């Protein structure tokens, strides 16, 4: 697996949002939403990205899909640089990279019927006749477990799970190789979530899909992902196979995350690693290790130096001085 060329690779990806202010609206400061992310995603795998809310997971996802202009760094898709392509050239790659959004309701136009929402993608990308498109849409609906009758429904006439299935259908419509799932199951309740997870797995096999799976639900990530990236304040904190992460978490942040997951087993209360305070705001980015302000094992030098990104064991990377 590692030998092959990565499907997607990011090198030193940065995304800053300007904070404007003052007379003439000059940029005063930046929100460092994504800091220096270098990552390889291989064909057929599912890469999980976890982290607290606001740590830049979605921004990362949007940036690699070209929905945001990046600040610095490069994105390679199948070995080609795509970060500075014009919209028209990007269109070709857009077919190959799709996204499933968190909120199944907000990600569908409330005034557009399901059928026409799916049809529209085909109109944009495929030169097909109406009949052919109808057939494709029908197949798509069936493939994600919906029925023909849903073709004419409005989003509000579907249940949450069904809506998310539409979102998935939209993502796979063009037969992409990479799908970014941004909190794709977070808004669903467990029983529906299980259905959608199953569907994602089936589709992965059927279409040889690669997923980047963004979530803050560590249970779901555990269940779905081959490798997991842990992010904190826009930076990479730890990366490894899911076994490495879940069984042998090295970074104190990963540890505290894992300890906070409520287990569905009554009476078994694990000792939590409690973090002090809230996430510092991305605009007043801490010096040194971004985690030092809340780290239970922080030392003086953590405030000064940014920790290196080290490979501790094969495929297991971590950024921490104390490991």
């Amino acid at each position, binding site marked *: 697996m590692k030998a092959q060329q990565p499907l997607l690779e990011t090198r030193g990806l940065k995304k800053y949002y300007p904070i404007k*202010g*003052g*007379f*003439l*609206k000059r940029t005063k400061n930046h929100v460092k939403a994504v800091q220096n992310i270098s990552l390889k995603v291989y064909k057929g795998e599912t890469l999980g990205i976890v982290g607290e809310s606001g740590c830049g997971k979605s921004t990362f996802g949007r940036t690699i899909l070209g929905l945001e202009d990046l600040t610095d760094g490069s994105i390679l898709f199948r070995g080609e640089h795509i970060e500075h392509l014009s919209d028209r050239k990007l269109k070709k790659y857009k077919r190959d990279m799709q996204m499933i959004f968190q909120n199944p309701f907000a990600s569908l136009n409330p005034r557009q019927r399901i059928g026409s929402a799916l049809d529209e993608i085909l109109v944009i990308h495929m030169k097909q006749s109406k009949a052919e498109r109808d057939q494709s849409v029908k197949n798509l609906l069936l493939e994600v477990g919906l029925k023909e009758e849903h073709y004419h429904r409005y989003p509000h006439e579907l249940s949450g799970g069904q809506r998310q299935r539409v979102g998935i259908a939209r993502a796979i419509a063009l037969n992409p190789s990479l799908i970014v799932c941004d909190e794709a199951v977070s808004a669903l309740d467990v029983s529906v979530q299980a259905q959608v997870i199953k569907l994602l797995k089936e589709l992965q096999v059927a279409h040889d899909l690669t997923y980047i799976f963004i979530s803050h639900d560590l249970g779901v990530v555990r269940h779905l992902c081959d490798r997991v990236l842990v992010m904190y304040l826009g930076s990479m904190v730890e990366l490894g196979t899911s076994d490495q992460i879940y069984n042998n978490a090295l970074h104190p942040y990963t540890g505290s995350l894992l300890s906070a997951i409520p287990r569905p087993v009554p009476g078994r209360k694990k000792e939590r690693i409690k973090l002090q305070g809230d996430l510092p705001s991305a605009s007043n980015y801490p010096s040194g290790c971004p985690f030092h302000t809340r780290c239970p094992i922080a030392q003086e030098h953590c405030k000064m130096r940014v920790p290196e990104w080290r490979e501790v064991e094969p495929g297991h990377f971590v950024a921490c001085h104390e490991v």
Partner: protein
Amino acid sequence: MISLVARRILQLILLLLGISFIVFMSMYIAPGDPATVIAGPTASASDLEAIRTNLGLDKPVLEQYFNYLGGILHGDFGYSYQTGQTVTDAILTRFPNTLKLAIASMIVATIIGIVAGIISAIKQNSWIDVTSTTIALFGVSIPNFWLGAMLILIFSVNLQWFPVGGLNESIFSISGIKQLILPAITLGTASAALIARMSRSSMLEIIQSDYIRTAKAKGVKQKSLIWVHALRNAMIPVITVIGINFGSLLGGTIITEQVFAINGIGRLMIDAIASRDFPIVQGTVLLVAAIFVTVNLIVDIIYALIDPRISYD
């Protein structure tokens, strides 16, 4: 906040430049000649020529425009073609009246509009709601002159409560306030109707919001729920409407000023347009534009005051 004001002033200057140019050009393009109006139908061709030379209208337009701008830089907005009064004087004597009228009618409109809108939102679909909506709809479709004349007929001529016209007494006197009431109602009715509709829909949305439910869960009483918790949020969109409306009110005082014999900017402008008194037209348009922008700036500041999420720095 200071930087907001500074930026707006910069924008205002650019806007005024743009407007003055367009006004200048439109006066030039529009048919009608100030000299003919001044001289009247009797004038001979040479009379007209003399008047034109006298007013500087014989020069090329652009030269006229730049002369005008040059004058403005020295605080000289020119002289009325008709009366020879300086534009500044002409405007300053009338502006207080228009301002009084516009502010009074805005107050009338705001109070009536908001109260009516909120009551109909609380009693949604009740007869009060239907009545107030219907009145609001009629309010926007009553021509101003008609309403004004009716008010005069009923309240001035028949009941003799208010004087028919004029607006020259101090607003701090009873007679001054009496003079203001009918025109304010006339001018404010349409705005009141609009504000009522806006407040109603905005209020309806707010009272379904989560935080109102939270307040209820705290045991907050109905009255303070509406007038304390919901009002401030409901006002945010309404204030924009009030701001925009205030701008158009200033432009819309013409008919009210005519009907109530009020010596104001609206009448000055319309008379000036009718007599092609370009400097006065320019002056009044610039003034209205400046006020419009200022009012919108104030609206933005009020925004920031009632909605802490907005900050301008």
